[in-house]
């Protein structure tokens, strides 16, 4: 059994985003997806802070900090890109103009509910950012996460115990072990890594897993 690295999950997600898509990547792990766009595809990446057509990170030693993505990473803009203000940026998000949003998650419920903010432990001040808008606005909401939490429990749950970011919004979950589609309140395993059985995965998951008719092995190039 060979779990996917975060880079490999990012690679896997990138394969599922068609040429010409408009995509917002959440801060942190999801940002890695842009490193794995397959050759020949043009994907237009959006950032909440008013950018479309984000290119590679800035490589110069001195960074232009007026050209950042929503995670404060200095980036570049591709030819064909555009700047716009926050209200217009969220017209794009809330208005359903984005094809894909890739978000991290603490929990996803089988009905598609997403919990990805406000860790209840600790005394961290609340931070929601644009995630709630992205959760309801994008045509497809992809979640990128490890299958199991640090305590060993599956992060796919019958019902989220953590505060929600959005209700019934998640369409597909990409993890280190499996790819799962959420359709009409049911969880379908579309891909699973070699060396693990559905039975053993089911035994550690409180949600009923169904076998997609198109079930295949989940794998990614080692170099990703």
């Amino acid at each position, binding site marked *: 059994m060979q779990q996917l690295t975060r880079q490999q999950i990012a690679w896997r997600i990138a394969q599922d985003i068609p040429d010409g898509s408009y995509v917002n990547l959440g801060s942190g792990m999801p940002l890695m997806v842009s490193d794995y766009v397959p050759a020949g595809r043009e994907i237009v990446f959006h950032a909440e802070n008013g950018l479309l057509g984000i290119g590679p990170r800035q490589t110069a030693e001195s960074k232009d*900090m*007026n*050209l950042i993505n929503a995670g404060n990473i200095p980036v570049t803009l591709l030819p064909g890109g555009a700047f716009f203000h926050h209200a217009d940026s969220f017209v794009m998000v809330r208005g359903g103009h984005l094809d894909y949003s890739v978000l991290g998650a603490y929990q996803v419920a089988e009905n598609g509910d997403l919990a990805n903010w406000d860790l209840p432990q600790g005394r961290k001040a609340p931070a929601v950012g644009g995630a709630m808008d992205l959760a309801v606005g994008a045509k497809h909401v992809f979640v990128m996460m490890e299958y199991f939490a640090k305590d060993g429990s599956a992060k796919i749950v019958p019902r989220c115990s953590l505060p929600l970011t959005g209700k019934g919004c998640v369409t597909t979950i990409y993890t280190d072990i499996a790819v799962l589609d959420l359709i009409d309140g049911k969880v379908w395993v579309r891909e699973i890594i070699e060396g693990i059985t559905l039975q053993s995965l089911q035994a550690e998951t409180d949600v009923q897993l169904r076998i997609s008719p198109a079930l295949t092995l989940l794998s990614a190039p080692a170099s990703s």
Partner: protein
Amino acid sequence: MINKIVPSAEEAVSDIHDGAVLLLGGFINCGFADELLAAIHARGLRNLTAVSNNPSVGEGGMVKLLSDGRISKLICSYSRKEGTTLIEDLCDSGLLTLEIVPQGTLAERVRCNGAGIPGFYTRTGVGTPLAEGKEHRDFDGETYIFEPAIKADFALVRALRGDRWGNLVYDKAARNFNPVMAMSRAVTIAQVDHIVEAGDIDPEHVITPGIFVQRVVPTRAPARVMASAATAVQTSAPVS
């Protein structure tokens, strides 16, 4: 003759009063009107409400207002200040009240005020803790919540270029919330890196037309938007 140019930040903020509601352009640490915020701090104003996407990064600008207890309420989408417990400490000691608003809802609530619209319905936040106590209403089988317009006294924005009529253009991602805050019904004060002649900004390229801007103040210190890789702090949330 129209001349909205005010020579100094001190003069530009001289009528801001204790208890004022301030709209701040800026995102993370990009596009804040830092010299206006410093001038407000120097005036010793208290009990301010700041409407800002996040506490700015670094130690200047609004952070000094926050850490010195001048801001009693912060309306924002992201209240954490990485590497410090400033916000948590202020909240625990009762000196600061937070209102957390999803980022797109924050932008639209400010635009509503500028557009003569009392609030708007959105699906954003439905079913989450941020919907509690809010009016819920169904349209075409979808549930929405009502988010009221945010009224404010002053908007403090940062622009790249501006003219005596108040027309503004911005620098790349430093645009962010600035045109939205400027559009509000508040008195808009713009800190501008380069003052240009009226007509120097092509009318096709104006982002904030002068009607939305009451005062234009030249930036005193040159723009410092270049950072070495080491100081380009990441403020990403651990997830999302």
